[in-house]
């Protein structure tokens, strides 16, 4: 069953018409015990059909061990967004941007913007933030728990993705709380967005750029 209706497809097509470099959506799914895995594949295929710059790769969580390890996938469905670093697509870069669960609802905005950022090669962060991110010299993992009906959540997800784009040591993962209930329980997610940085820093709410940055710098 298709996911995107014609009107949404039309807007997405316009939005994606500005893409410059190629982008790859890498989708991890499994056949059993994953009620939304089929939707994940459909969504990726529909996106690829809307822009010549988007291609997809599909892997099975249980079988394709190499890829699962390479992208540090520990749940399905999960999407990694990687981008070509030049116009001939001879090299690809993993910016550490992942979406776990279906990025529907308000998160579709985050998903589209992540694709756009990776293709255009611009995080649109302020120079001050970019400079501060350069000083980070240890791995930073940002988990952003969301629900698909939360209008605040994309602000947090998009900022985390921008941070990940700027520094290879930073990774960002949107996690759909209603899909991964055990994980939401483990991290006591009772309000979204809930952000967990390197397991030790946790907070709720979408902070502006400078305050979110300060949390990362203190991790």
């Amino acid at each position, binding site marked *: 069953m298709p996911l995107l209706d014609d009107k949404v497809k039309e807007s*997405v097509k316009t939005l994606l018409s500005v893409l410059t470099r190629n982008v790859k959506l890498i989708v991890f799914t499994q056949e059993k015990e994953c009620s939304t895995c089929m939707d994940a594949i459909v969504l990726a295929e529909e996106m690829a059909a809307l822009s010549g710059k988007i291609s997809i790769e599909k892997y099975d969580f249980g079988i394709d061990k190499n890829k699962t390890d390479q992208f540090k996938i520990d749940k399905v469905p999960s999407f990694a967004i990687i981008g070509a670093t030049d116009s001939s697509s001879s090299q690809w870069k993993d910016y550490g941007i992942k979406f776990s669960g279906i990025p*529907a*609802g308000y998160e579709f*905005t985050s998903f589209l913007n992540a694709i756009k950022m990776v293709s255009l090669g611009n995080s649109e962060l302020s120079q001050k933030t970019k400079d501060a991110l350069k000083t980070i010299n240890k791995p930073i993992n940002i988990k952003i728990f969301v629900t698909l*009906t939360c209008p605040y959540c994309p602000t947090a997800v998009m900022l985390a993705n921008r941070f990940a784009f700027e520094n290879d040591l930073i990774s960002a993962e949107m996690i759909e709380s209603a899909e991964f209930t055990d994980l939401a329980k483990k991290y006591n997610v*009772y309000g979204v967005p809930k952000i967990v940085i390197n397991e030790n820093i946790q907070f709720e709410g979408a902070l*502006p750029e400078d305050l979110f940055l300060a949390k990362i710098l203190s991790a």
Partner: protein
Amino acid sequence: MDIFFEVPKDVKITSPSTDKLYDVIIAGSGPAGMTASVYCSRKKLDTLLITKDVGGQVVWTSGIENYMGYQYITGRDLSEKFYQQIEQFPISLLKDVGPCHLEKLENKFAVNCGEKKYYSKSVIVATGKRNRELGVNGEKELLGRGVTYCSVCDAPLFKDKIVAIIGGGNSALTAAIDLISYASKIFIINILDNLQGDEVFLDKIKNSNKAEIILSSEVSKIKGTEKVEGITVKNRKTSQIREIELDGVFIEVGLMPNSEFANNLLNMNDQKEIVVDCNCKTSIDGIFACGDVTAVLDKQIIIACGEGAKAALSAYRYLLGIK
């Protein structure tokens, strides 16, 4: 809720500039601010819309049945339509801003958003309202840990859990409806002797067999350390105390105006709503206000839209006078 796919909102609109002097800056992009934007740009005013989010309270509303032209429309869809309408015009948009405030300078106004300032000849304040806090022990400490003001956002996190909704108006009843498909039990606790919300909502809630309504009672404490564990409820008539164990507290006790934007500048009533005349003029020439942030008694989408149009046309007349 039906699955939907939200497409980003800054496709066609231009970025703001700190260097120029806009004809008008509109603060807030709920129904009032968005309508004002359309009217300003149709008058060819150089317009900057500065806002925390796009849509305002409408985005928090599941369904609307009293906006003319639609027998039923979801809040998200209506705000999407409003947005599509402003996108048709050449306005600048600055969104996701932190708290900004208004300053009056000689012959112009500045909107100060921390690091950056934007300048204009006139201003329309349309910053609306936000949820009122209950003001009890545990509320601030447990915010995001079971205490919430956003039922559309957080309802899915309370699957098979016990929750309480504090309040008795339409927002409280809408929150209850958002929660019916998730929570195992819903307490609705109201300080008054009855619920003030619409009968249609009440029927839905009663039919779910999940709700227990506790009237004439107030929550005196929200308990928990890492997360919400329970509440203390006191009956105002009998003074009887009841302890309830639960996982979530949804606070829906009314709204307060976002008038801090214009603090110490404009005349306000006791509730901190901006006082305006029937043409949306405030106590300072060149500053206009509209929608829920004003002292206009009724707070509805259609009213906010109408007031937004009036504020824009008043600003236009003011600018003709000074140009």
